[in-house]
């Protein structure tokens, strides 16, 4: 029976003309070329970043990473204020967003997996991710900033309005969808047998979630946090408009600061010394490496989780 199919296929394949076979191999080669193109692209990005950072690496050495001074006049550059700014905004945003992301994941994954209300929430979350960041920044500048300013004046803090806190707030809203949608998928993947076993033992819904669902999805939810973090670290426009653009280590949560991405956006086109431009690109290199590592770790955890 299989022999017959084999012969059938062989005869039909043999009937292909030489030019058709040539097109076939051309096409297969083209597919390979496109994939290699991607490899070249990513390698190219890394190489360009490294090569353009070299003047700064040579001039400033490793001390660049903890240098606290960013002084274009005297050509002293230190990335520390921006590392702090980036980490501070990202982690504050993460902390603010986690309760909401988890709540959405649990709601959509456990309590209400289908139906109009569930779809409404799911669509809302996806739309939040779809809104361009420039619009978040623009809206934040005109609505969030005055609100924060009034808040600051009430508590006798300098009424900047813009600063680390405001930037973190808008960032939190923007990154909720990433952990939320991943979390939803994971929570739904919890085997019903585990949950039903717990219910059979008399557990309440809350107890099932707390002692079965959450531990089971722990590593996956952690991956979701990593993905949200990766997004937060690289976010540029909304943060640039709301963070205050001050190249000093922020003195408090409500002080202005700068992130690696925002200082690049602000000063790239005006960097007039070679070392200045190179220092900015070195920031880009650091940003690239950090976000790539975090994203890859997150993705690895997810594949391992979904394959188990």
């Amino acid at each position: 029976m299989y022999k017959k199919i084999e012969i059938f296929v062989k005869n039909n394949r043999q009937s292909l003309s030489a030019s058709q076979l040539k097109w076939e191999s051309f096409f297969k080669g083209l597919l390979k070329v496109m994939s290699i193109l991607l490899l070249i692209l990513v390698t190219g990005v890394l190489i360009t970043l490294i090569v353009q950072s070299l003047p700064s690496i040579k001039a400033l050495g490793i001390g660049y990473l903890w240098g606290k001074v960013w002084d274009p006049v005297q050509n002293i550059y230190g990335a520390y204020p921006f590392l702090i700014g980036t980490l501070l905004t990202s982690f504050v945003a993460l902390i603010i967003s986690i309760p909401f992301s988890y709540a959405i994941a649990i709601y959509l994954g456990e309590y209400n997996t289908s139906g109009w209300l569930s779809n409404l929430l799911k669509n809302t979350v996806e739309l939040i991710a779809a809104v361009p960041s420039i619009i978040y920044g623009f809206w934040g500048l005109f609505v969030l900033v005055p609100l924060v300013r009034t808040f600051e004046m009430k508590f006798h803090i300098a009424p900047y309005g813009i600063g680390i806190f405001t930037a973190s707030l808008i960032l939190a809203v923007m990154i909720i969808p990433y952990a939320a949608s991943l979390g939803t998928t994971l929570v739904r993947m919890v085997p019903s047998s585990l949950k039903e076993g717990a219910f059979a033992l008399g557990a309440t819904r809350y107890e099932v979630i707390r002692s079965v669902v959450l531990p089971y999805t722990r590593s996956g939810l952690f991956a979701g946090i990593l993905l949200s973090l990766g997004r937060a670290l690289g976010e540029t426009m909304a943060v640039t408009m709301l963070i205050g653009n001050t190249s000093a280590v922020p003195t408090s949560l409500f002080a202005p600061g700068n992130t690696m991405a925002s200082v690049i956006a602000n000063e790239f086109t005006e960097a007039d010394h070679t070392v200045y431009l190179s220092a900015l690109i070195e920031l880009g290199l650091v940003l690239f490496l950090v976000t790539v590592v975090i994203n890859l770790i997150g993705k690895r955890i997810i594949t391992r989780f979904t394959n188990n």
Partner: protein
Amino acid sequence: MKLIKSLKIAVVAAAVATGSIMSASAQDNTLLGAGSTFIYPLFSKIFADYAKTGVKVNYQSIGSGGGILQLTNKTVDFGDSDAPLNEEQAKKIGVPVLHIPMASGAVVITYNIPGVSSALKLNGKIIADIYLGKVTTWNAAEIKADNKGVNLPDLPIVVVHRSDGSGTSFIFTDYLTKVNGEWEKRVGRATAVNWPVGLGGKGSEGVAGLVKQTPGAIGYVELAYAKQNHMPYAFVQNKAGKFIEPTLASTTASSNVELPADSKVSLTNTANASGYPITSFTWAIIYKEQNYNGRSKERATQLVKLLWYNIHEGQKECAPLNYGSLSKSAVKVAEKILKEATYNGKAIL
């Protein structure tokens, strides 16, 4: 499927066709400029008028530092800066450039103090101390001393400076360096300095925006920006001890100096008794030898003609926007410099 494929091909063909047609035609009649935000309101008006001649000018106000960089990278036809090229910038460009003065302008100290609508009187030392972070509230003794009768509230001063490389910053820090020894030692003068305190705004637009929206804020912008946005500005004490209001007259008074042949001069802290102490020229910068990167003679001529227009007919736009126009002798110096522009060694004008 066929539809999609043919659509794709159509789009590609259309893009290529349009691209080549339009780039061929648009190639030689749009000049690119970048640089100072200081001069932007004036340029914006002049170039809008100049477009009637058929030559369009695309000027991006990315800051003086940015303008010089783009000129060095040869991605623009001309740059504009409120500070002449420093040594390292000149070295990086490597070949001679021409600085052509365009106009002079005043950098004003603008502020947003709820309840205070009259003009404050400030002197240079106090301004520097505010920007050093040493004077932190509006009702500080030093400020009150010069402003008796003004109801200064107990409000923290929110310092605003430029976050990008700026000639306006250069003018401002140049002045502060001259009037405050501590500023000279700690910060110095440049287009981008290590600001001790304060928020950064991008461009004069950013600074004006921040000051306008933040109670207690103080910032420095061109007179044109403050006027356009109905923002209050201070009378600053000049070298002669008088508190001078930044106006067209006081700007012109301080820029009424003898220009050296290369036109590079600093006007801050002027000795002129009725001059406003924070003023400066702004210069358009072009390559002396215009045949680089395969530029056509036509393009070089258009550029030089544009700048010639700026120093002659364009000057009438200065006064309404409160920029000081070039004095007759300044125009002569500018003409001479512009005539040094060459194409393949031969003078263009």
